[in-house]
């Protein structure tokens, strides 16, 4: 809780206008709810990352090494020489203000330091002070300032209040990408061991067990068995759960968020049902892996090196199992990594084949280098070729809208495929307003490692613009489910919508696909589907399910 104001302050505050100084002179207050917990020593230890100690952001003393300043500045110089993006973005911003009102944290929360330009300026002021002549000579007049303990804390506070969604970058006349600046800021923080635990722990877990949650192999299989049993109750089909199988056609990698908490699990079940159907009907062979049991990559929120270390498992496992190509599940930042980084990190994957859908014959030329295909691309191709019997009416109890997740939208250009699939499997689909979707989509407010429960206030602020657009379609068209292709979305929207727009659920695309998919027994009329994957009655079967 914020510290209580003294009576005198209250009286003085009677004009209600906030005190405001120039941005360089104000410091953030670490109010609970607006930042995540610091990383634990044990998690830094797993990957051998620097300054291993339990980190508490709200404490006065961050237990930094004595030469923290040199470490930070040397790290900065190093990155200025290794990333053209970083140096360029430090140099060319003209502070035109076009980005100022594009950040969801600014729009929802109103803290001016969340304007992207200022977020960048926090680091830029350091850059000017130590790496430019004008800053060294003119100091403050050139917008330069010394790196002090307080300034370090301020930078920390705001690089962990950016969800790396890249919305501002769309509007910047020079393409300055605050995500890139935040990434650099976070790399520098990690040189000092100042990560969030909600990032550091998944990273450590993923390194050891292959997934963010730290689930060991026997745990993964039992979770999948649990999903299989639930799915069997609803569909009557007992799906296969191939794990670590050599010689399959496809290695399937999904984000662990899909198999661990509702409503992600329904998406996972949907994918399981679809794959099983394809196996039975068309002889597709596939396998999951317990070693590469994570599509997501919280290393991306730590440093490019850590991201590479975690990402390496995908190709390594594909090689070991001898599959032809890799199919990736519905996940946001996973696809940023797969699409824009993976081939560079750990390629070339010359031991794999150019992905080819064995059922339709479509060759995915656009993925000929990474050899990895998005499951929505795969499903869209199947639907287009008429390979899936679908009964759209089975999703009639849903009125759907689609949220473009930041990474697939602005890091991949993935707009039409998911929409095609959704429109093919359900009757009621409504878009949110034009300036809140596609490349202009608003973030869920919890991306890039900010989705921890203790960070709830920041998440609610950041999610307001998105929730507000959902509310609009909810009121106008009766939309009752927000469909998305990101595991972080599926974890963060339920609380967000609960607070802002009660009455709207969240789902993944393949949950809807599986609802609509007419299974062989159903096609033959042997069995009828009465419930959706959540166990709720389908439209027209409300009474039947009640009677049961």
């Amino acid at each position, binding site marked *: 809780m*914020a510290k*209580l*104001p003294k009576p005198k302050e*209250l009286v003085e*505050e009677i004009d*209600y*206008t*906030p005190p*405001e100084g120039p941005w360089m002179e104000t410091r953030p207050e670490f*109010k609970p*709810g*607006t930042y995540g917990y610091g990383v634990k020593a044990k998690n830094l230890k797993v990957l051998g990352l620097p300054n291993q100690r339990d980190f508490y952001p709200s404490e006065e003393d961050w237990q930094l090494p004595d030469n923290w300043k040199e470490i930070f500045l040397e790290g900065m110089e190093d990155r200025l020489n290794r990333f053209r993006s970083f140096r360029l973005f430090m140099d060319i911003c003209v502070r035109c203000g076009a980005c*100022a*009102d594009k950040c969801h944290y*600014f*729009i*929802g*929360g*109103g*803290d*001016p330091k969340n*304007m992207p330009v200022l977020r960048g300026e926090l680091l830029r002021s350091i850059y000017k002070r130590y790496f430019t002549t004008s800053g060294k000579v003119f100091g403050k007049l050139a917008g330069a300032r010394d790196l002090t303990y307080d300034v370090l804390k301020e930078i920390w506070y705001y690089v962990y209040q950016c969800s790396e969604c890249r919305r501002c970058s769309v509007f910047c006349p020079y393409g300055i990408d605050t995500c890139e600046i935040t990434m650099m800021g976070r790399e520098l923080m990690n040189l000092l061991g100042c990560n969030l635990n909600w990032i550091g722990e998944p990273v450590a877990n993923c390194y050891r067990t292959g997934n963010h*949650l730290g*689930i060991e192999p026997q*745990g993964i299989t*039992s*979770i999948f068995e*649990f*999903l299989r049993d639930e799915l069997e109750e609803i569909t009557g089909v007992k799906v296969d759960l191939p794990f670590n199988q050599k010689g399959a056609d496809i290695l399937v990698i999904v984000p662990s968020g899909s*198999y*661990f*908490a*509702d409503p992600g*699990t329904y998406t996972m079940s949907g994918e399981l049902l679809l794959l099983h159907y394809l196996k039975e009907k068309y002889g597709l062979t596939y396998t999951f892996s317990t070693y590469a049991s994570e599509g997501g990559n919280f290393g991306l929120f730590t440093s490019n090196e850590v991201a590479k270390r975690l990402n390496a498992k995908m190709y390594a496992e594909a090689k070991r199992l001898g599959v032809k190509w890799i199919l990736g599940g519905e996940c946001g930042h996973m696809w940023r990594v797969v699409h824009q980084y993976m081939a560079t990190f750990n390629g070339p994957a010359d031991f794999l084949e150019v992905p080819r859908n064995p059922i339709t014959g479509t060759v995915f030329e656009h993925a000929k280098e990474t050899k990895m295909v998005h499951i929505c691309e795969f499903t869209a191709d199947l639907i287009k070729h008429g390979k899936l019997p679908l009964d759209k009416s089975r999703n009639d109890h849903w009125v759907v809208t689609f949220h473009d997740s930041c990474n697939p939208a602005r890091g991949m250009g993935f707009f039409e495929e998911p929409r095609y699939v959704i429109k093919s499997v359900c009757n009621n689909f409504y878009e949110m*307003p034009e*300036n*809140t979707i596609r490349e202009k989509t608003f973030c869920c407010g919890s991306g890039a490692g900010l989705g921890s*429960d*203790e960070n*709830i*206030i920041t998440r*609610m*602020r950041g999610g*307001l*613009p998105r*929730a*507000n*657009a959902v509310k*609009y379609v909810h009121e106008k068209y009766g939309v009752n489910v927000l469909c998305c292709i990101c595991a972080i979305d599926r*974890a963060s929207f*339920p*609380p967000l919508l*609960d*607070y*802002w727009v009660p009455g709207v659920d969240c789902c993944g695309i393949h949950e809807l696909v599986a609802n609509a998919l007419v299974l062989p027994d159903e096609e033959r009329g042997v069995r009828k589907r009465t419930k959706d994957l959540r166990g709720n009655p389908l439209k027209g079967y409300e009474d039947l399910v009640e009677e049961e």
Partner: protein
Amino acid sequence: MGDILRDFLLEKRSAILDKWLNYILGTYPEATARYFRSQKDRFLNPVTYEFRESIGGIYQSLIDDVDEEEELYTSLDRIIRVRAVQDFTPSQAVGFIFLLKQAIRNELGKELEKKGLEKELLILEEKIDKIALFAFDIYLRCREQLYEVRIKDIKNKIMGLLKATGLVHEITQEEMKFKGDKAFI
């Protein structure tokens, strides 16, 4: 409330509401306030949209003697829900109610004085005080909900894992029926 005052309030409704909204937005840092004031698109500026949509309802319930609690509640909730997650202390978050006094005084003060209606104004302001108390209840409810949301979030994750790994078995409705313990459902 006397008819004269009510007529005044109705007549000056939009001017007072404009002032009030302006004052409310003035509780944000200058750079922010300007954005909130100038951006008219509801999707790009949900904060002002929520405020604009709700202050009318609060105002109306102030004028109407009938207790429109439902409308008052919804309107207050929409504003406070936003301010409950922003950088405000609790008093700042609900203090915007008192800015209505300021708006009314600035807009009507002189005329009311001329007409000798200061007493009526005092009664009106007492009513605003009551709304402020109500606002505190709503603020607390929003904050409570935030913690509930947070707990639910944690529970969902932990229960999901426990169930999935077979460590916890949730009793289904059917099993309850089987045991005949309907009373517990």
